[in-house]
């Protein structure tokens, strides 16, 4: 029963990544290499973040929201953005269109994030006898995270790879990118300061991820129109 439950939660957590890869044209253009490179960049970014966290942060035992600590964590979170910038711009990819590049990088990024943060608790916890809803919620959170990563990658590619953007849209792009990048801080604020329970936080994440996805899709297509026109 319990290995069954682990299998279920694993499907929920990692299935959408595989589905995304196979359903969209990414599989046709064989962008697996890009995704893998993005995953490796994420690993490096995560290590750098760990070192920074260890150096600058002191872990408090209670669950309270400490503004200075959270600010520090948000700043360290921007290392994520730097990593994404590196993956988008500095790495050499095969000749794939921009459209697919950001999707592949976002996918690889999200997959590495899920594996790193969610596989170990799943393996140890979901195989036990006790049943909790936590792992299912974690899987839903992984889905929301996938959408977030792809949106961030889209906004990032808009910011750094596309040179001719409509002037009016630029602040919106940067604002959305800022929101998505600080998503972890926002969720921890909700969880600790406002005392939201895990299901509520996951619901909020899902909702905002869908919103962000729609907004970034609109922005992307809006920015694409001048070049096509």
């Amino acid at each position: 029963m319990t290995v069954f439950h682990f299998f279920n939660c694993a499907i929920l957590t990692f299935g959408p990544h595989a589905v995304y890869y196979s359903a969209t044209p990414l599989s046709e253009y064989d962008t697996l290499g890009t995704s893998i490179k993005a995953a490796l960049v994420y690993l490096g970014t995560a290590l750098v973040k760990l070192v920074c966290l260890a150096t600058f942060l002191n872990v408090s035992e209670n669950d309270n929201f400490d503004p200075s600590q959270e600010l520090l964590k948000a700043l360290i979170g921007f290392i994520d953005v730097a990593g994404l910038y590196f993956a988008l711009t500095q790495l050499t990819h095969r000749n794939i269109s921009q459209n697919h590049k950001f999707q592949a990088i976002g996918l690889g990024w999200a997959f590495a994030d899920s594996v790193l943060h969610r596989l170990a608790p799943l393996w140890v916890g979901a195989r036990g006898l006790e049943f909790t809803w936590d792992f299912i919620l974690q899987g839903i959170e992984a889905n929301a995270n996938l959408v977030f990563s792809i949106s961030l990658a889209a906004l990032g590619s808009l910011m750094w790879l596309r040179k001719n953007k409509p002037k009016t849209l630029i602040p919106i792009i940067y604002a959305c990118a800022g929101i998505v990048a600080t998503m972890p801080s926002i969720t921890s604020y909700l969880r600790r300061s406002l005392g939201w329970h895990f299901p509520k936080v996951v619901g909020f994440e899902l909702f905002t991820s869908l919103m962000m996805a729609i907004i970034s899709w609109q922005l992307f297509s809006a920015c694409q129109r001048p070049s096509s026109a």
Partner: protein
Amino acid sequence: MTLSLTRQVVEVSASKALLLSSFTLYSLSTQTLDRAPAVMASRKQGHREVLESMYSVIVLVFMLVACVELGDAASAVDVYRLIQYDISGVPLGSRFASLNHHASSMHFSPGVDLTRTVLVIPIRELDLGFVKVLLMVLSSDHYILWWILQYPVYFAFEDDNVNTIPADIKRNDASGQQATATAGGFKLVVSAAEPKKVASPVITNIQGWLSGSKTDGDTNQLPTIAIRGSSWEWCCGAVALLEIARLFSILYSNPRTRGRYNLLFGLTSGGPYNYNGTHKLWLGSFDQRLRETIDYAICLNSIGSWDNELYVHVSKPPENAYIRQIFEDISSVAEELGVKVGLKHKKINISNSRVAWEHEQFSRHRMTAATLSEPSVAPGLLERAGGLSDGRHFVNENSVARIVKLVAESLGRHIYGYQGKNIEIFDDGSSLAINPSYIGSWLDLLSQTPRVAPFLLKNDPFVMALKKELTDHTDEVIVQTEVLDGMFTFYDSTKAILNVYQVASVTFDLLLLLVLGSYLIVLFSFLVIVTRGLDLISLFRRPSSRKIKTA
């Protein structure tokens, strides 16, 4: 909530360990650079340094492993197993220890299959007749001991944490769902090793000696009165004994009030096991002169809760002068206290090895002895052996206090020669008053400690506490231990931890799989339509165009 905190802790501790290992490596590298000239030494150094760097990596691995939550039960409860023992080779008690079944309460629907379930029953709801049919658990302690049960039986103390479990189980059963592998519910797991025989169960006796005063020129030994209480099986005798010891130590501490009797206090064990502690160990250790000087012995038994009637049990005939004197002492004080005391005489049956009262052990060694107790008949073997019925609420500290007053007054009048006179030595309100809070606190301690004799080791803190208390009140304390052999063999694994898990049913997992499968299929089709939507429509159009071509 815990997951995210765990994640944070993992991250920070992992990063700290990473820092540590990186610093170690860095320092190691600088060290090797410095020691370049000495090749041989550096090679050994290098080995050591490689080992040290390995240690930090191993530490990192352990920390990561430890940070991930390993315990996952809804609650873990301390439980105590029903005792398992053999009498002369006949196996009795509960024979098994480990447990891994679904839980059920007494309110299950009839016709349900109860094999491989665990019944969780609060003691209050036990019904002897019904349970006899099921052969599971019985209502009063001493009956259980005579059954051989092929099932593990565990007892747990009630507290808020534990009480929610039967309530939840009842709710589950009331909804008609039977807790098996297919439906959800609770699963109880006790992982205990196979019970093994306790190799040499020891029993411990503590004895305290309070010397009387000898006037100069008195060559004879002073007579001795022995008082005996059992600390292991009946809680009250020991507490009464401690209080009497305390009162007499106050009296004896002053040379002017020291009586002309020695007092010997004995806390013995092995009571239900045929009073083995008293017989072999304690009395056997007395040498002949001591035995001759003992005037009489009083044993305290089952004095925890009684109304107004007590019995003095003797084995010598009541016409005996000594017995008459003891009885008169006690009954004169009892009259003043408003207590009725009766005398019961039971002859010793020498051929029967079973001993009914403790004083019989004394009588076998030719010492005058009596037992003061509440029941009028002797308890059966192992009856009232403590355990469930030994609860704190069954014992009244006022009754213990009254017994103490009774015994202490009668002893005091005997020692100081005030028999028949209307003088109260241990008057309430004086410095020699009985202290109910002292009695109460010792009763609390004794009722909370599991005290089955074979499982108490020599250095048990409980034994040490009793020894220290007696040392405070008496001049000399001796602790004796002996291996309990003979009729009884005990098995270990008495205490275990019960893990209660809330499990989901298989149908839930299957349902979840179905939901997830459909979600993924929907996601796949959505993405295909969104990203390659035009291709799909053209896919549908192509066959029709082909048809037109062929036609």
